[in-house]
């Protein structure tokens, strides 16, 4: 059961002042402009605001509960408040937290804070982020302690975890690749920490490095394969398609919803065109792991029933040909995400409906209705089998029990 041992950083609050750098207490020296701008951009690319803000509350003031399979982790206050934020932290302490997963007083952080990715940043990058965070409004917000159940409350256990999973090396430029590719690799593996969601995890939550960016289940969603895999990944996407998706949340094939909607809204849509193109170039260079799968026979019972449901219930938006409407209704004939081996996300969207992200360039944010009341588990499986195995596509069959599982798994979720 939850243990009352206080996390290290709370003790830190009591020991307020050690080294206070005036530059980081809310009154930036205007000469820091370049560094602050660099930091602002990186903080956006890293989507710090997402975890460290309770929406509707002051930005970066922390206190948001981050759901993990091991319990909820409470994010820290990143504002320059001296008592409750990072105002009193030394540069060393901040760098150690971001890139090494070490708390201010030497304790280990949980990798819900993606220091495993941020290790790819340079020390200058990290100090720029700190300079930016020092320029925002300080907010007094004493965040409650994280209290994971035993044994995860023993933070020293992270020493072993780090030994297993944490590559401390900074990003290394690959001279055999283009500058654009290198920039993309840096963004994907570093600040944007794509692998946090898109790389499958071991039972301890470490990356399965042999399945790099090939898709992963988390928190009731399946983050799809984003390698260049033709069937499951971005093989049919052009660099422009990826760029449009990151900038706007929409393209001719699909639309961002769920966790990716927020990543687009808060992070990728604010990246420069150069950076979104760089990410696209890098992702397109990843071969993925292509397995060939035979489509379900057209005349199988599941395909026939699924086809009838598709015609009657889906085609008004997604089209009889599965081509949808560019930037409005996903072209599910082409959307590899719909054919993921793990159909969690597709099932979830059919059951509960979804709204795609609104961005400045694509403000429509069209929604998909919920079918949970209308289709039973078998019917959801059937219509997904039809979608996954039509128009030249092929995917593993979805079973009624898969639907039943997602139905019960998501029943209590507010998202």
């Amino acid at each position, binding site marked *: 059961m939850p243990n009352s041992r206080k996390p290290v950083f709370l003790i830190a609050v009591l020991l307020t002042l050690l080294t206070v750098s005036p530059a980081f207490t809310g009154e930036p020296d205007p000469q820091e402009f370049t560094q602050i701008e660099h930091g602002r951009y990186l903080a956006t690319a890293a989507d710090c605001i997402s975890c460290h803000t309770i929406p509707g509350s002051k930005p970066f003031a922390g206190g948001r509960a981050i759901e993990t399979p091991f319990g909820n982790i409470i994010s820290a206050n990143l504002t320059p408040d001296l008592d409750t934020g990072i105002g009193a932290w030394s540069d060393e302490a901040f760098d150690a937290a971001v890139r090494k997963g070490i708390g201010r007083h030497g304790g280990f952080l949980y990798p819900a804070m993606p220091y495993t990715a941020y290790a790819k940043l340079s020390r200058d990058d990290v100090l720029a982020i700190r300079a930016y965070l020092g320029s925002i409004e300080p907010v007094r917000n004493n965040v409650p302690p994280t209290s994971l159940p035993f044994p995860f409350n023993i933070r020293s256990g992270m020493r072993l975890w780090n030994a297993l999973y944490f590559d401390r090396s900074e990003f290394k430029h690959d001279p055999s690749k283009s500058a654009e590719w290198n920039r993309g690799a840096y963004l994907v593996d570093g600040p944007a920490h794509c692998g946090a969601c898109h790389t499958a995890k071991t039972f301890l939550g470490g990356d399965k490095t042999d399945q790099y960016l090939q898709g992963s289940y988390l928190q009731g969603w399946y983050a799809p394969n984003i390698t260049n895999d033709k069937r499951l990944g971005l093989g049919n996407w052009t660099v422009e398609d990826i760029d449009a998706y990151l900038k706007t949340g929409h393209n001719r094939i699909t639309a961002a919803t769920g966790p990716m909607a927020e990543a687009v809204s808060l992070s990728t849509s604010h990246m420069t065109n150069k950076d979104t193109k760089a990410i696209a170039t890098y992702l397109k260079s990843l071969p993925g792991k292509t397995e060939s799968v035979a489509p379900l026979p057209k005349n199988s019972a599941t395909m026939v029933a699924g086809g009838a449901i598709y015609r009657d*219930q889906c*085609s*008004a*938006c997604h089209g009889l040909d599965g081509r949808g*409407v*560019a*930037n*409005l*209704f996903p072209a599910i004939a082409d959307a590899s995400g719909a054919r993921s081996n793990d159909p969690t996300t597709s099932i979830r969207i059919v059951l509960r*409906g979804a*709204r795609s992200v*609104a961005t*400045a*360039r*694509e*403000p*429509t*944010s*069209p*929604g*998909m*209705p*919920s*079918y949970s*009341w*209308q289709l039973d588990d078998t019917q959801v499986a059937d219509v997904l089998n039809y979608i996954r195995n039509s128009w030249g596509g092929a995917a593993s069959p979805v079973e009624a029990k898969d639907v039943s599982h997602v139905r019960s798994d998501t029943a209590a979720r507010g998202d």
Partner: protein
Amino acid sequence: MPRRLPKKDVVIIGFGWTGAIMANELTDEGLDVIAIERGPWRDAPTDFPPTYMQDELRYRVRHELFLRPDQLTFTFRNMMSQTALPIRSWGAFMPPNGVGGGGTHWNAEMWRFLPSDFVLRTHLTERYGASFLPADMTIQDWGITYDELEPHYDRFEYLCGTSGQAGNLKGKILEGGNPFEGPRSRPYPTPPQAQPFSHTLFGKAAQELGYKPFPQPSGNLSQAYTNPLGLRLGPCTYCGFCEWFGCSNYSKASPQTTLIPYLIRKANFTARDNSEVIRINLDRSGTRATGVTFVDTSGEEWEQQADLVILSAFALFNVQLLLHSGIGKPYDPVANTGVVGRNYTHQTISTVNGFFDNRKFNFNPFIGSGSIGMCIDEFNGDNFDHGPHGFVGGGYMGQVQTGGRPIESTLVPPGTPKWGADWKKAVKDNYLSTVKPGTGVHGSFYSYRDVYLDLDPTYTDRFGRPLMRITMDLKENEIKQNKFLTDKFAEIIKAMGAEKLAVQYRKGPYDITTYQTTHVNGGAVMGTDPNTSALNRYLQSWDVPNLFVLGATAFPQNPGYNPTLTVGALAYWAAAAIRGKYLKNPGRLVDA
């Protein structure tokens, strides 16, 4: 005491078409705007999804999307000598409720009015002489011309992605369009919708009779469209559930598809739903609005102060709120004084149903859209010489059947029993081969001295306020007009090949139980003279200059077209006046 909310620059009453247009325009000006909507938030995927929207009983018969009369209704009588009685259940028209207003469940017919419609009294007097008009007819000029409104028509058409064929491009008459329309500066943004079989047959028959048929301009889109705000609409799939229903697949122009997703992202815009404005508050002088008082669903009263008040509820509710707020002089038909309640109108509609040989004709009547159809405009407005006919006004006509929803579309030929085995067989034999144009003849309804709105002496609403009283009847002029048009229409339906016709003229008395479109207009009309109009040509109240009243409320009389395009264009026109003139120098834009 109501609880007071922080003051805003602008408060908008009613979040339908005109409220959303004005909110978007004024937030662009940097103003802090709140829109207060009486009904619930509504959007396609959450409130009218394709999973259950195709429900004729729920939406058409039981009026799911409309205001509950229990919340607010009107009383009605045909003439001043009668006692008005409450409209206990909607019939003749359907007052909207909720975000999107009537723009959510309309058919999306996108008609411009004729240039002569805006100068009607002048035009008819010049052509036929003043004595040609009935003595009690109170039609008047609008105080605005077609040419002034044209850029705003254009803007609204492009906002909506309107599908149609231009008939008059900058004065050049184009084949296949409506040759009678005023000159337009641009073609329609998207091509006309596809036409089902019976609609095409009507076009052919009309052409053979010497008319110039054209596709009805439609806000149900023929193809995907991205509007100037970057909002995306999809192609209409001809599901046949448009009017009375919300569009589930983003293919009908509505505030939800063309404005709200863009507007809601603005930091200086807020919407509040389920909140009914019960009064516009005035300062002691009675010439300045200070804001509004509204009641939320828990019964709590709130006051929202603002520098500028936009009244953009449904036409009838605009008039009612003016009366309840003591703004403008109430109309008195006996003394012929006052303006609020004056020149209330509706639409004169009728139809002819055609029964065809089912061995030769299968119309698949369920394939349709709200504004599909082939029409002719030869008999609208003053497009023909009224001299020999002894009436004024007119309308368009066409095969504008919107679908084949079976509760109201299972017609039987005249003479068939209404029940029993013969009825059943006739239904079976005729469903697929009947032409049921709905509002096939869509005629004007001009204004009269004793057709008006005022407060009822007996019946009250849930707050104890008097209901508004409608006094309305069909006049000889409109009955003659309708007879003439309906006969012309019947000739075309017959020429299509119908074996039997059911000709349904509009006859008096005006009946509050039969649906005659929701185009109830006027009551606080625009004009050039404060003695005969409540609003000046910019839709600004003559009496309270920081109040603008949007909507068909302002129509001095109702031409033979659907009102929404003009309603939207007038909202843009008023917004342009506020942005260009009023904000620089708040006060009367026209000297009284």
